[in-house]
């Protein structure tokens, strides 16, 4: 236990460790080195040893077991997390920018009266303080902020830290909360899985992705024609799915699918961090957007500042001509 330790909240998604946790461990390693502290991974599990191999980048693994920690509910999760923070007194708590992290990060900061930064892309020690670069305004701005009080609660932007495979000594400590946790006001009922039967966009090589810039449902036909010409499928950003123009199985991003196609053609998509999360790793990204400052151009390989609705038929025609 040292005031320089960095605590990482590990997250289990569908029985496996979330990718975001490995990213957090990499970020924590850099910070721990700077302050001479250790990396602590906290996992809620009756069998911490099961997760030890994937958490080996930590120096210590604390596994907490309680019946209230088997399915997610904010209050018991928060209580267990707070108990570990009180005993370990870390300098920073790193939490993934996930559905669960978005609840626990701010709730924890509120309880502890601790500084909170969301959307963290880079974290550095700066003397007693931490210097954090965070995404702001849908990725159109970056902010450099300083957090002095300890612990700082840092919610990372997924995809910002590269897991380095550096292994620690990873000793698993299995614990129980001091007193059994109470259920709280929020109870898990069941999982709702997406309806099967639709095209699986995660298996497609060629994706034509449309965003709010597509403007009307009717314009989806233009994207459909292009996708057919390319031998691929149409997918979308959240607002298109929110409108009910395409099913949730076609959504790419944080709440949607993570895709890694050979081609991702982004049309009328601004490239918010929550969208990038699902498509950043595509082999070739071509973005079409009327706004030259759209963040999608920061990750695209090629970009064009033209109207997507004009480009769609022109590109379909150009490809058909090439096919002969």
């Amino acid at each position: 236990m040292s005031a320089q330790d960095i605590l990482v909240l590990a997250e289990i998604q569908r029985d496996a460790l979330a990718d975001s946790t490995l990213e957090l461990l990499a970020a924590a390693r850099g910070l721990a080195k700077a302050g001479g502290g250790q990396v602590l991974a906290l996992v809620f599990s009756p069998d911490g040893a099961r997760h030890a191999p994937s958490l080996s980048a930590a120096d210590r693994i604390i596994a907490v077991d309680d019946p209230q920690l088997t399915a997610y509910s904010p209050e018991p999760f928060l209580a267990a997390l707070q108990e570990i923070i009180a005993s370990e007194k870390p300098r920073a708590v790193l939490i993934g920018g996930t559905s669960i992290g978005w609840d626990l990060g701010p709730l924890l900061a509120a309880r502890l009266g601790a500084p909170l930064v969301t959307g963290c892309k880079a974290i550095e020690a700066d003397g007693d303080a931490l210097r954090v670069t965070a995404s702001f305004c849908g990725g159109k701005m970056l902010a450099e902020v300083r957090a002095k009080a300890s612990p700082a609660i840092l919610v990372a932007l997924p995809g910002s830290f590269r897991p380095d495979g550096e292994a620690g000594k990873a000793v698993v400590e299995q614990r129980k909360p001091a007193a059994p946790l109470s259920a709280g006001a929020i109870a898990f009922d069941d999982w709702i899985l997406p309806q099967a039967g639709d095209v699986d966009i995660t298996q497609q090589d060629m994706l034509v992705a449309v965003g709010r810039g597509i403007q009307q449902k009717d314009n989806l036909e233009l994207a459909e024609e292009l996708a057919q010409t390319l031998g691929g499928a149409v997918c979308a950003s959240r607002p298109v799915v929110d409108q009910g123009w395409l099913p949730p199985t076609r959504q790419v991003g944080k709440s949607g699918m993570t895709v890694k196609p050979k081609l991702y053609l982004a049309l009328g998509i601004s490239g918010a961090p929550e969208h990038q999360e699902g498509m950043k790793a595509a082999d070739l990204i071509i973005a079409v957007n009327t706004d030259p400052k759209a963040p999608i151009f920061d990750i695209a390989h090629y970009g064009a500042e033209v109207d997507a609705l004009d480009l769609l038929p022109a590109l379909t025609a150009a490809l058909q001509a090439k096919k002969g």
Partner: protein
Amino acid sequence: MNIAVVIRQVPDLIEPLEIDASGSALDLDSASFIVNESDDHALEQAILLKEAGGATVNVVALDFGNVDDTLYAASAKGADRIFKIPLDGLPPPPRAAAALFAEAIKPLQADLVLVGVQAHDELDGGVSPFLAAAMNLPYVGVIRGVKAASEPGTISVCKEFPGAVMARLKVKLPAVLGILGAEQPPRYVPVSRIRAAMKSTQFEERSVATSPSEPLLSVCRLYPPASGSRAEMLSGSETEVAARIAEILAQKGMVK
């Protein structure tokens, strides 16, 4: 059911964003403001609950930006009471804003408080969880869809997870929810209905005071991301751009 909805104004990202002279904040004088998208979904969700089972919908907003336009639209959509919190200057950061909203909402004795889960101009994000903490109420966020539940005093909500997966949760009221999406997209209201609302709606002013607190974060610098990583831009008309893209794809063997 008595529902409170928080509605915020945020800079419109379609317009150019400027940084002020301090270098550490947006120049809000040059920004144009729109309703925060997830707050709009929170309002829609409240109206849907009202339509489904009866509810009073109270809207609470800071008096800032184009808030009046947004609030008249809220009234036209079916909000029952609208409260404006007067502001001295600019809207405060999330925690301080949450403290103001909490003071304004407490007297309403709401069973359910709905707030958008995200606003893009928050660095220490989460007015919604901070509001729950300030009101000492349970909280869960990243919610899409809220329904009455069979057990009295509870509601059923869906929380989004990756892969289009949702968890159904049962929530005991009163509670605060961070709304990401309503069950249906926010409704469109014709301008004529908004005009009518402008004549009939009375805003209620809620002056609230909270004790100032030490900021826990200091923003050193705000800047647009480096342009070094930017895409190779294809110029010309849409026909020329289309021809270039077709060529690039053909070269990579993607045109079959």
